[in-house]
C-alpha cells in the first residue's frame, strides 16, 4: 500500500433485524447445517463457494466478485456473551458498547469527537436515514442526519429557491444573534448554525456529482449513492452510517432474504464501482454488522433470534479472506440452540478504530478486547 494524502473514511452498513449468518456465509459441507436447515438449507450446488468449507448465499454474486479480488474480509462468530436476543436491546449494546448497563454514548459518536475534537466540521459524521442512530449520538457532537440528500436542508417546504435563500439568511442572522444571550441559547444558536452549514456543505457536493454507475431503485442503493456523492465531493466526512432491512425473517424467510441480499450485494458493488470511477475508493473501508445471527434450526418457514453473527469489512485496504473460526455447529456445542460467539464485537470495533481510523479504541469501546487483524494498512505513515 502506498501512503495516501486522504484520511481514512468508514462507511457502516447496519443489517437491521438480525441477519441469518448461516445462510449468508454457508458451511456447505457441514451435515449439521443441512440437518438443522431442513426447510431453508441452501443447496450445495447453489452455494457460491469460496473454499472447501464455506460459501456465500447464491444472491451474493456481486459481493463474491469483490471477495475474489481480495477486498472482502469476513469476521466469524461475532457477538457477546449472554445475548438478550431482543432486537432493540441488542442493537443498543452494539451501538453503545455497554452490554451490562444502558449506555448513553454511541461508539461512532465518540470516534467522531476524537476525529474532530473542536467540532470544526459539522459533516465529519453523516447518517443517511430517519432519526439518529444511537451509535452516533454523543451530547455536544454534531452529526448530520438526512433521510434523502436530494431533499435535505432547512425549510425545504419553501419551494422557491430565492425565497428560501432569503429566509435562510434570516435564520443565520437570528441564530448568530442568539449566541451570547445565555447558555441554552448559545448551544441552540451554535447547533442551528452547524446544522445549516452541514446542509450547505452537503448540497454543494450534490451539485458537483455525476456518475456513470446506475444504481438500483431500492432504499439501500439510494443510501449508498448518497454516501458516494458526499464522499466524492470531498467535504471531509470521515464516518458514514446507513442501514437496510428488515432481516427479521421469522416466517417465509427464503423470498425476503433472497431479495434483501440481492439489494445489499448489488448496492455494495455499485458503490465500489462508483468510488473507483471517481478514484475515491482507496481511503474507504465499509463495515457490515447485524445485531445478532439467527437460530441454527429453522422453524419450518423462517428462523428465530440467535446469537453469533458475521461482520464484513470491504475495501481495497482490508485483508481479504476469512478471519477467525466459524462457531461450532454440533447440537451439543450450541447455547439455547444458537451459535456461540467466539469474537467480541468490541474487538472488531477496536481493529477498525485503531488500525483504520488511527484512534485509541480503549475509551471508545470501554476496554481491551481481542482484535482480529483484517486491515492491511490505513496508509497513514507510522
Amino acid at each position: 500500500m502506498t501512503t495516501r494524502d486522504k484520511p481514512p473514511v468508514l462507511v457502516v452498513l447496519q443489517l437491521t433485524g438480525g441477519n441469518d449468518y448461516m445462510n449468508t456465509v454457508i458451511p456447505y459441507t457441514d451435515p449439521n447445517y443441512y440437518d438443522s436447515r431442513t426447510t431453508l438449507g441452501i443447496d450445495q450446488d447453489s452455494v457460491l463457494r469460496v473454499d472447501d468449507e464455506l460459501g456465500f448465499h447464491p444472491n451474493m454474486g456481486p459481493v463474491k466478485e469483490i471477495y475474489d479480488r481480495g477486498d472482502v474480509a469476513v469476521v466469524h462468530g461475532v457477538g457477546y456473551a449472554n445475548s438478550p436476543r431482543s432486537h432493540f436491546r441488542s442493537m443498543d449494546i452494539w451501538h453503545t458498547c455497554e452490554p451490562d448497563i444502558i449506555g448513553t454514548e454511541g461508539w461512532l459518536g465518540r470516534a467522531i469527537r476524537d476525529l474532530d475534537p473542536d467540532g470544526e466540521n459539522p459533516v465529519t459524521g453523516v447518517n443517511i436515514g430517519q432519526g439518529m442512530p444511537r451509535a452516533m449520538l454523543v451530547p455536544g457532537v454534531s452529526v448530520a442526519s438526512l433521510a434523502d440528500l436530494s431533499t435535505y436542508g432547512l425549510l425545504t417546504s419553501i419551494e422557491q429557491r430565492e425565497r428560501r435563500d432569503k429566509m435562510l439568511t434570516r435564520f443565520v442572522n437570528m441564530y448568530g444573534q442568539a449566541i451570547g444571550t445565555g447558555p441554552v441559547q448559545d448551544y441552540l444558536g451554535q447547533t442551528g448554525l452547524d446544522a445549516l452549514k452541514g446542509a450547505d456543505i452537503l448540497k454543494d457536493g450534490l451539485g458537483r456529482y455525476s456518475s456513470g454507475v446506475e444504481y438500483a431503485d431500492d432504499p439501500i442503493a439510494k443510501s449508498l449513492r448518497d454516501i458516494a456523492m458526499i464522499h466524492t465531493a470531498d467535504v471531509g466526512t470521515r464516518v458514514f452510517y446507513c442501514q437496510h432491512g428488515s432481516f427479521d425473517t421469522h416466517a417465509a424467510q427464503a423470498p425476503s432474504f433472497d431479495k434483501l441480499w440481492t439489494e445489499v450485494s448489488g448496492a455494495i458493488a455499485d458503490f465500489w464501482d462508483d468510488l473507483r470511477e471517481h478514484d475515491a475508493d482507496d481511503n474507504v473501508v465499509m463495515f457490515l454488522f447485524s445485531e445478532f445471527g439467527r437460530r441454527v434450526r429453522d422453524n419450518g418457514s423462517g428462523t428465530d433470534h440467535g446469537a453469533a453473527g458475521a461482520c464484513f469489512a470491504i475495501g481495497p485496504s482490508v485483508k481479504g479472506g476469512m478471519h477467525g473460526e466459524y462457531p461450532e455447529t454440533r447440537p451439543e456445542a450450541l447455547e439455547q440452540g444458537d451459535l456461540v460467539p467466539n469474537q467480541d464485537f468490541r474487538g472488531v470495533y477496536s481493529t477498525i478504530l485503531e488500525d483504520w481510523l488511527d484512534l485509541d479504541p480503549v475509551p471508545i469501546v470501554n476496554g481491551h478486547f481481542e482484535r482480529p487483524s483484517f486491515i492491511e494498512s490505513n496508509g497513514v505513515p507510522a
Partner: protein
Amino acid sequence: MPDSKDIVLMAHLMRRAGFGATRDEVERRAAKGYEETVEELIDPPDDVPRADHHLLFRFIPSTETGGPNPIPGAAQWLYHMVNTQCPLEEKMALFWHHVFATGNSKVDNDNHLTMQTQMFREHGLGNYRDLLLRVARNPAMIFWLDNNENHKRAPNENWGRELLELFSLGVGHYTEKDVFECARAFTGWTIAAKIPRAPLHRFNWRFEFRPEEHDYGQKTFLGRTGNFDGEDIIDIILEQPACPRFIARHLYNFFVADEPQVPAWSVEPPRDPEAIESMAEAFVSSGYEIKPVLRAMFNSDFFKESMYRKVKSPVDVVVGTLRLTGDLQGPDPRLAAAGQEPAYMGQSLHDPPSVEGWHTGREWINSGSVVKRINFVADRVSDVELPGVRSIVERVAGEDAAMTPGALVDRCLEMIGPIEVSNDTRKELVSHAEDEGPLAWATDDEYKTSSRRVGDMLALIAATTEYQFA
C-alpha cells in the same frame, strides 16, 4: 373580555398543561378565566370528549396491537394526544412515562407498553400511592426491571433499586442495605402468561403473586423492622420527606422549568427550592393526591413566571403543531408514520433510552434533531390549505385591505402563540417582511399572495430559537 395579558398567560398554561392551543381556543378559555381553566383541565367535566379509540380501531385496526412492533402503539398514543379535549390527561400519561420509564427495547411486547400508557391515562391524575402500587404490579414494569427474576433464594435488586432511586426518593436517601431489603419485600411479585387470544399469538402477561417465591422473613428498611411486603415498603417510602420533594421536582422539571438531568439531583439543588417545598406540602397534606399538587403548581406565581423556560420536547413539537394546524385529525392513515416523528427528533414513545427516562432541556437539541424540529413545524405552518393555518391567515388579514410588514410580523406572532421574541429576532422578521413590501388583501390575487406570505412568516417564526421553547 380577556386582555392581552390573560391571553399570553393562557397560551402558556396550554403549552404546559396541554400541547398548546389554537388562538380560538386560547381566547375561549381565557374568557372563561385562568383558575377555571386549570380546574377544567385537572377535573374535566364528563361531557368533555376524549379521543374515541373505538373509531380509531374501526378505521385503522392495525393500530390496536403491535406485538413486538412499537409503531402501532406510538400511532395510537399520538391519536389520543392530537384528538383529546382533555389534554392534561395525556400530558400526565407522558409525565409518568418519563418517570416510570419503561422501554420496548427490552420488553419486546408493545401491547404491554400500550396497556401501561392506558393505566397512566386512567390513573395519572389519581393518587401517587395507588399509582406506585399499580406500577409495582404492572407486567411491563416487572419484566423491564427483572422482578420476575426476583426470588426468595436469589433476590434481584433491579426493581427494588429503581423504585428508590428513580421512582420515589432519589440517590442519597437510602442505603445499599435498604435496596436489598426492598428487593426482598417484592420477591414473588411476578408475571404469569395468559393464554393468547388466538393460536400462535403472543402470550400476554398478568400480575401474579407467588407465595412460595416470597421472602416472609423479617426485614429492616429505612430504620423500620418488620415482616414487610411490597405494599408496606411503599407505605414506608411515602413517610420519607424526600419522597414528595422528589416527585415535586420531577413535576417542576416537566411542567415549570428545565432542571438538570435526574442523576445530578443529589448534588445540584433545585433552581427554585421554595416552589418544590410548596408543591411537596400540597402533595403530603392531601395524602399524595395528584390533583391538589397540580392545582397548586398551575395557580402559583412561579409557574406563571416561567414562560419559555423549557425546551419543547419532541412530543410537544409534533402534537402541538398538529393541533395548531388541524392536521391529522381523527383516524388518519398517516398516523403510523407520524407516530415516529418524535422518535426522529429523539423521543421514541414506549422506548425511552433507559429507565432514567429522557434527558430533557437542551439535550433535546442536536444538529440532527434541530433540522427535524424546524422542518416538521415549518412544513405544516406554511401550508395555507390546512384548516388551522387557513384560520390563522383569516385572522391575520382581518378586515384590513392593506397592512404594513411590521403588522404582519406582530399578527403572526400573536396568532401562532402569542409568543415573545427578542428585539433582534423581531428586527430580522420585520426586515424579511419588508423585502416584499406592504401587504394587500383586497383582490383575490392579493389575498393569495398575502396568504403565502403569512405561511412563509409562520415558517420563519417556527425556525427561530424562541420557538424551540415552551
